[in-house]
C-alpha cells in the first residue's frame, strides 16, 4: 500500500490548516456562503438536508486497518456512530458540524487520509478496480498509476475551477469492475505488442441527466507521457467545456458536441505542445510508487498461479479442520469470493447489504470488526468497492471459515454479491438535498422481499441500482434494472429501466414506460424477474435474456 512521505504528509497538513482558516473566515463573516461553498466542497463538506455531510476520500478504494479504525473513531467522535460507503469508493458522514470539521480532518491526516477534492468542480478522487493487485486477470496493478494521478491532480493550480466535476477511473484488465467508461476520463493500463506498459484513454463518459459511454480517444499513451496526456485532456476541457449551462458542462457534452474526432485533434495538439513544455514527473517517481504496491511476500508467485481460477468448490471444502461449516458458509464462499492471482488465496467481499438494511452503511463497531479481520487475515489491507461493499483482498482459503464466522457475528455475512439484494442505492431524499424521492426504503423493501421468498439465488446475477434524482449517484443507467426517483407534483414516483451495464459490456438502460409509485415499482421489479425466469435459457443472466428477447415482453408484463 502507498505510504505518505514527509511531503505528502505536509501537503495534507497544510490543507487542514487552510481549511481551518477558511472555516474561521466563514464563521467570522469574511466569506459569504457563495464564496465559501466551493471551498468547503473542495474539502468534501456539503450542506445536506439535515446537516453538513463530509465525504472522505479513499484513494482508489484502498485502506488499511488503522485507517478503517480511524473512520470508526470519527463516526463516534464527530458523527452518530456510522458512515456510508459510496459508489465512488469514498465514505460519507451525515452529521458533521462545521465547527468540528477541521478537527475531523486533522484526525484523518494522522492516518494519511483527507477529504481533498471529494467534491467541487475539480478532479475528484481517482477510483479503480476493487480487486486491483489481487485479481487474476489484471495486466498490472492499476493503483500506482492512480496514485501518480492522485498526486498530479491534488491542488492542481490550473484545474481547480473546471466547468464541472471531473471523475477519473483507472483499471488494468479487460474486465471492467470500475465502470471505467462511465467516467469523464477512463484509463485502462495495457501492454503493447512489445510488452511496454501504456495507457488507453477514454473520454466523455458519464451518467447524470445525459448518460454517455466514453469513446476511445487514444489506444496507447507511453507511460512516460501519461500525466502529460491527461493534462492535455483537461486543458482542452477547461478552456472549451461549456460554462453557460450547468447541465451541459461535463466533458461528455464537449466531446459529444465537438465530436470525438475533433476533441481528439485538439487534445493531440495540446499534448504535442505540453510535451515540449515538459510537465511529466520523473519516471523514477512511478517506480517509487510501484514499490509501495508490491504484494506481501507470501502472495508473490512470479510466473505461476496468476490467472488460475478458484478450483470449483475448493474454497468451501478447504476450511481448517474442526471448523464449523454449513450451508450458509458454503453459500457465502460461492457468492462472495473472487479468484486471486495466488491459487491459495481469494478476495472476500464483505456485504454491506443485509436484507432490509441500508446499502453501504456500516456502524463504527462493524468498521472495527472489518479492520481487525484485515489485520489478521488480509495482510492489513481493505478495499471499498464501487458496489458499496467492502473487501478483504487477500484471504487464505484456509482462513475463510474464521473470517466468515466473524463477519456473520457482526451482521456482515450476507451472501449476496451481485445478486438482486446487492442493490446500489444513493442516499436519496432521506439525506440528500438534491433528491426527488427516497431510494433507501425501496432498496430495503426489495432486498427483504427477495430474501424472504428465497428468490435471490434463483434469479442469480442481477444488478439493481437506484438513484433518488437525475444526478444518478446510484448508477441507475448502468443497472440491469435501474430505478430513478422523480417528483410527480410533490409525490415520489419511480421510473424503471432495463438493460444497463457498467462492466466491459457497458450499456445504458432503457426506460420501460410510465413511472410507478413505491408499491408499484416494487411489484414491477418482481414482474420483470418473473419474465426473466420464464424466458431464460440455461446459463443466461437477467441481462443476457433481456438482450436476447428485448424490451417488449417486459413491457407487456408491466403495462399489458
Amino acid at each position, binding site marked *: 500500500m502507498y505510504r505518505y512521505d514527509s511531503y505528502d504528509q505536509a501537503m495534507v497538513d*497544510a490543507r487542514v490548516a487552510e481549511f481551518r482558516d*477558511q472555516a474561521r473566515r466563514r464563521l467570522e463573516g469574511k466569506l459569504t456562503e457563495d464564496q465559501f461553498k466551493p471551498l468547503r466542497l473542495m474539502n468534501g463538506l456539503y450542506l445536506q438536508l439535515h446537516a453538513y455531510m463530509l465525504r472522505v476520500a479513499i484513494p482508489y478504494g484502498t485502506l488499511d486497518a488503522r485507517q478503517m479504525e480511524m473512520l470508526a473513531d470519527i463516526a463516534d467522535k464527530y458523527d452518530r456512530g456510522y458512515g456510508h460507503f459510496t459508489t465512488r469508493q469514498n465514505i460519507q458522514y451525515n452529521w458533521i458540524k462545521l465547527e468540528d470539521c477541521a478537527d475531523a480532518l486533522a484526525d484523518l491526516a494522522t492516518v494519511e487520509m483527507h477529504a481533498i477534492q471529494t467534491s467541487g468542480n475539480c478532479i475528484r478522487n481517482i477510483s479503480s478496480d476493487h480487486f486491483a493487485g489481487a485479481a487474476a486477470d489484471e495486466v498490472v496493478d492499476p493503483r500506482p498509476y492512480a496514485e501518480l494521478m492522485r498526486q498530479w491532480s491534488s491542488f492542481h*493550480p*490550473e484545474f481547480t*475551477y473546471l466547468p464541472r466535476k471531473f471523475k477519473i477511473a483507472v483499471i488494468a484488465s479487460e474486465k471492467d469492475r470500475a465502470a471505467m467508461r462511465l467516467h469523464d476520463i477512463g484509463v485502462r493500463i495495457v501492454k503493447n505488442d512489445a510488452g511496454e506498459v501504456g495507457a488507453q484513454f477514454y473520454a466523455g463518459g458519464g451518467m447524470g441527466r445525459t448518460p454517455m459511454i466514453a469513446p476511445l480517444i487514444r489506444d496507447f499513451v507511453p507511460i512516460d507521457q501519461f500525466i502529460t496526456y491527461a493534462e492535455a485532456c483537461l486543458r482542452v476541457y477547461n478552456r472549451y467545456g461549456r460554462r453557460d449551462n450547468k447541465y451541459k458542462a461535463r466533458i461528455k457534452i464537449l466531446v459529444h458536441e465537438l465530436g470525438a474526432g475533433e476533441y481528439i485533434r485538439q487534445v493531440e495538439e495540446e499534448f504535442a505542445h505540453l510535451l515540449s513544455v515538459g510537465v511529466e*514527473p*520523473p519516471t523514477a517517481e512511478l517506480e517509487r510508487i510501484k514499490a509501495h504496491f508490491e504484494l506481501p511476500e507470501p502472495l508473490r508467485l512470479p510466473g505461476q498461479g496468476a490467472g488460475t481460477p478458484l478450483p470449483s468448490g475448493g474454497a468451501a471444502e478447504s476450511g481448517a479442520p474442526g471448523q464449523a461449516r454449513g450451508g450458509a458458509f458454503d453459500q457465502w464462499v460461492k457468492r462472495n469470493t473472487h479468484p486471486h492471482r495466488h491459487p491459495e488465496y481469494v478476495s472476500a467481499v464483505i456485504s454491506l447489504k443485509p436484507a432490509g438494511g441500508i446499502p453501504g452503511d456500516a456502524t463504527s463497531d462493524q468498521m472495527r470488526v472489518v479492520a481487525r479481520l484485515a489485520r489478521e487475515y488480509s495482510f492489513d489491507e481493505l478495499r471499498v468497492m464501487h458496489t458499496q461493499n467492502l473487501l478483504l483482498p487477500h484471504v487464505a482459503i484456509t482462513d475463510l471459515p474464521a473470517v466468515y464466522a466473524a463477519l456473520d457475528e457482526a451482521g456482515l455475512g450476507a451472501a449476496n454479491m451481485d445478486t438482486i439484494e446487492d442493490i446500489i442505492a444513493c442516499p436519496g431524499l432521506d439525506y440528500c438535498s438534491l433528491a426527488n424521492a427516497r431510494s433507501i426504503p425501496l432498496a430495503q423493501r426489495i432486498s427483504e422481499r427477495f430474501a424472504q421468498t428465497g428468490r435471490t439465488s434463483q434469479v442469480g446475477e442481477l444488478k439493481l441500482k437506484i438513484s433518488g434524482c437525475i444526478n444518478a449517484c446510484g448508477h441507475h443507467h448502468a443497472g440491469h434494472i435501474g430505478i430513478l426517483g422523480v417528483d410527480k407534483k410533490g409525490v415520489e414516483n419511480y421510473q424503471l429501466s432495463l438493460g444497463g451495464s457498467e462492466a466491459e459490456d457497458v450499456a445504458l438502460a432503457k426506460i420501460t414506460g410510465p413511472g410507478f409509485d413505491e408499491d408499484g415499482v416494487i411489484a414491477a421489479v418482481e414482474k420483470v424477474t418473473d419474465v426473466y425466469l420464464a424466458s431464460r435459457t440455461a446459463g443466461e443472466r437477467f441481462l443476457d435474456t433481456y438482450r436476447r428477447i428485448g424490451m417488449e415482453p417486459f413491457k407487456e408484463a408491466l403495462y399489458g
Partner: protein
Amino acid sequence: MSQNLGTSPDEVQFRFRDDEPVDHGTVTVDSALEQTNAAAVRIEPGDDARALLPFLDRLALIEVNFPGFGDGRGYSAARILREAGYAGELRAVGDVLIDQLSHMRRCGFDSFAPDKRLDEEDAARAFATWENVYQRAADARRTIPEKRHEA
C-alpha cells in the same frame, strides 16, 4: 476605435515585479490584433489566449479578467502565455479572492487587482499556503516528485 478599459496601477493590490507598471488602460484581444501599438491587453474568459502569441514581444501588460471566481478559464490562459515565453506583467483582475491567490500565482500571475481589496494578513497566508507542490506549472518551482529524486 478601441475603448480603454482595465485596471490602473493604483488598483493593483499585490505585485511581484520590480519594473514600473504600465500606466495606460488595456484593450480587448480583438483590438490588440488590429492595433499594432497596444502594449496592454485584457483577456476575457471566452478569449483565446493563443491569439496573442504572435504579438507577445510588444505586450508589457496582460490582464486576465475573472468576472466570477468560479470560471477557471483564466488559469489556462495564464499558463499558455507563460509557456509561450511571455515575460511581461500578468495581472489577475475582477473577482479575485483570497483562496484563489496561490493557484493563480502558480499559473504565472504576478500581479493582482481584486475588485474588492483583500485582507492583507489573510492574503499573505494564502500566498504561502503550499510549501511544496506536486505538479509542474508556470512557476519555476521544483516539484515534489523532482525533489524526491534529486541526486
